[in-house]
């Protein structure tokens, strides 16, 4: 065999430098000038994610974020869509657990107009009742659609079953049918008034900008934005029960969607970098252990993977695969076997080097686009990460040893506590799962 050709010397790459300001009203401003770019990306993050909502109003954060794009005091829904899209700008607005984000990517020349419209939308949204009722109905319909989709049904069922009943993360960040059904437009107006405010907001502008001009534009449109946002609540997630099997019936399914896991890590976990390397090695790249075993050796699935979902508080750790119904029990055993193996021995030097080198080497590729760079700034603002986070990122990955990976696996991968959730045809699966010795079985029929 001929060996692979050697590379030449790598060219140095550095994550783009940015400048950071805070306006007197508390708004954080992050400017990333990227000369030679044609585009500009603007992301405005507010501490108005689902973690800021009252439990009784679950879903109001998501609905309010979606409602923002339906117009301003000055422009109704049709006029706002027309005005922005005629500039070649599609404004997005969405929320997660940890923040709400609105923004757009456009040709650099459109920045002044786009920024003015974005600021108008954030500061004086229309929030009218007719559009609110439409968004609410669309959300309820989406919940119906999600139940018919095996992957979404499995994702949502896993979260509901893995978190203790009173932990917000157990429900959907966009709300449940019951909570959304009870929401009224007054709640969205109140939520906007109390959560969207400059002291809990940051704006990132990356791309074809001149920093002083961009700062002046931000000051002009958002400098006199006033208000005092309440910010998020904190809570400590707990798991519901220990090792058990939950079968969510989806009659007629020809595959089982598997979700196996438990609580994972928060964004400030001390083993964050070791966890990142470990999860990549176990199920984050094509050549990961899960994918090699379940796909490339056994042919059970098109793809097997795992990941952490670090949030302000502990998000889940989930290993997943969609496998043909007949091999469901065998596939679960194989998947658990890989979790056990991860805890048993440290990875070999070649295996570890490959994954670490991937995560380090792929770094410049992640930041090819202005939107990619703006997105990279978000966690710095949302999670208060140090300004040099991306500048030290690669050296911190490179410092992860085989022993670090083993310690992380033993702490963070716990098959003995895992919830094994299966979405599939209960008629075919129930008896096999009950007698497999994987843990107590509960069969759930979705509403």
């Amino acid at each position, binding site marked *: 065999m001929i060996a692979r050709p050697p590379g030449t010397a790598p060219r140095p790459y550095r994550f783009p430098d940015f400048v950071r300001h805070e306006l007197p009203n508390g708004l954080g401003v992050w400017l990333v000038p990227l000369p030679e770019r044609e585009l500009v990306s603007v992301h405005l993050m507010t501490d108005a994610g689902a973690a800021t909502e009252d439990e009784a109003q679950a879903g109001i954060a998501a609905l309010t974020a979606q409602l923002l794009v339906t117009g301003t005091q000055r422009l109704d829904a049709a006029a706002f869509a027309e005005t922005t899209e005629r500039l*070649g700008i599609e404004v997005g607005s969405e929320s997660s657990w940890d923040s709400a984000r609105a923004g757009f990517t456009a040709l650099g020349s459109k920045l002044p107009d786009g920024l003015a419209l974005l600021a108008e939308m954030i500061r004086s949204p229309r929030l009218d009742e007719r559009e609110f009722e439409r968004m609410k109905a669309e959300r309820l319909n989406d919940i119906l659609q999600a139940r018919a989709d095996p992957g979404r049904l499995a994702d949502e069922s896993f979260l509901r079953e893995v978190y203790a009943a009173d932990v917000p993360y157990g429900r959907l960040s966009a709300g449940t049918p019951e909570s959304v059904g009870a929401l009224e437009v007054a709640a969205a107006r109140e939520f906007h008034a109390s959560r969207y405010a400059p002291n809990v907001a940051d704006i990132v502008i990356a791309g074809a900008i001149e920093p002083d001009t961009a700062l002046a534009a931000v000051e002009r449109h958002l400098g006199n934005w006033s208000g005092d946002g309440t910010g998020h609540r904190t809570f400590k997630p707990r798991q519901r029960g220990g090792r058990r099997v939950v079968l969510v019936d989806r009659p007629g399914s020809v595959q089982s969607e598997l979700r196996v896991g438990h609580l994972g890590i928060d964004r400030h976990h001390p083993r964050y970098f070791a966890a990142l390397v470990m999860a990549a090695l176990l199920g984050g790249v094509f050549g990961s252990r899960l994918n090699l075993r379940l796909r490339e050796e056994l042919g059970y699935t098109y793809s097997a993977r795992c990941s952490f979902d670090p949030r302000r508080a502990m998000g889940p750790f989930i290993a997943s695969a969609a496998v*043909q119904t007949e091999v469901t029990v065998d596939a679960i055993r194989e998947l658990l076997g890989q979790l056990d193996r991860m805890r048993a021995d440290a990875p070999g030097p070649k295996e570890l080097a490959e994954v670490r080198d991937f995560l380090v080497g792929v770094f410049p590729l992640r930041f090819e686009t202005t939107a990619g760079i703006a997105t990279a700034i978000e966690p710095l603002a949302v999670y208060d990460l140090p300004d040099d986070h991306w500048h030290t990122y690669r050296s911190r990955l490179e410092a992860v040893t085989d022993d670090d990976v083993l310690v992380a696996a033993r702490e963070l991968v716990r098959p003995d506590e895992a919830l094994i959730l299966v979405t599939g045809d209960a008629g075919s699966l129930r008896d096999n799962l009950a007698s497999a010795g994987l843990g107590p079985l509960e069969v759930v029929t979705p509403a």
Partner: protein
Amino acid sequence: MPQVPIERHALENGLRVILSRDPRAPVVAVNLWYDVGSKHEKAGKTGFAHLFEHMMFQGSSNVEKGQHFSLVQAAGGTCNASTWLDRTNYFETLPGHELELGLWLEADRMASLLPAMTQEKLDNQRDVVKNERRWSVDNQPYGDWDERIQELVYPDGHPYHHSTIGSMEDLSAASLTDVGDFFATWYAPNNAVLTIAGDFETDAALEMVRRHFGPIPPNAALPAPPDMRVDPRIGSNVRETKADQVPLARVYLAHRSPPFGTDAFDALDVSADILGSGRASRLYASLVREQRLAQDAGVFVFPIVGGASIFTLWVTARPGVTQETIETATLAEIDRLASDGPSDADLERVRNLHAAHAAGALERISERADRLSMYACLFDEPERINREVARYAAVDGARVSAALRDSVRADNRVTLTYVPAEGAS
């Protein structure tokens, strides 16, 4: 709009080579289009071009099974491949200093795939592909829409009549002999385009290309292209209604339409965006926002080049809204645009959105490389990448109306409707 730089070269064995240098970021894209897709499959062999694509990752003379991915990843790169009606593409994005790794990997499998093939590997990837089909089609709500539309838009026996994923029966029947035949027929340098985009030195890159790909022999007996001829219209409104495990009804209206690369295609592309792109689009504004009949809607036209393409509108009904109601409302929007033509505001909107999307797509060198390969492979004209925006902007209201009147009409339609099955929530 800045122009994408293009240098065309060719090797003696017929390999077309496109270079597009851009050293701004230290990354390079390697992209190969083979002029073979599911339209080249023979009866009883549906899905084979795609299954074969999987086999291309199972090793070659100097690369072990799984090593293609692991070498690229260890180098800090990403890679993948895809198969569609007209073509199969393979691509790597790598740090610039690892360009030769990508070229060597692609050349090794183009030169010497077969010595590494085994029955065991074929059986494994057959199982993987069957699970890909289950995951993307058989176990998905509305999952077989494109398969059904192709079967209904094109006559039996037409090369676009069957889907790229293929049937379970044909996948079961695929043999090692088929792998060998397919490779010998189609995977030759004179049936491929190689594009390199991003951070490289031109002379060094060309030297590497010649060294790795130059010795690979061409196939002197490439088959003639398949006969793609088809009547420009279907001739009727073909209706099919399926009861499925879906909570909301959905209607697909599909039409035989002029192929990618024609002026009429561009006009339909613009029509699709006026009708279906963004919150100011006609279908969203009317059916979703104002009348509140639909949960969502979309319009697209396939960029395929043989005989005829497909112009498709789809609309998902809200609960309690019948499929007849959304079908009628959708047709009313088509008729209004065809008869009145677009407004200046419509055209300004979609042109500016299109220009922004094009600039966004071309920010990524992998996309730049893929489009260069596409235009070179399908039209032998990579320079088309620099005319995309101008072609789109040249479409005026009269061309929109004419294209809709010619193609998007009742005697040229497949109406595919999914309705909730009895007992579906």
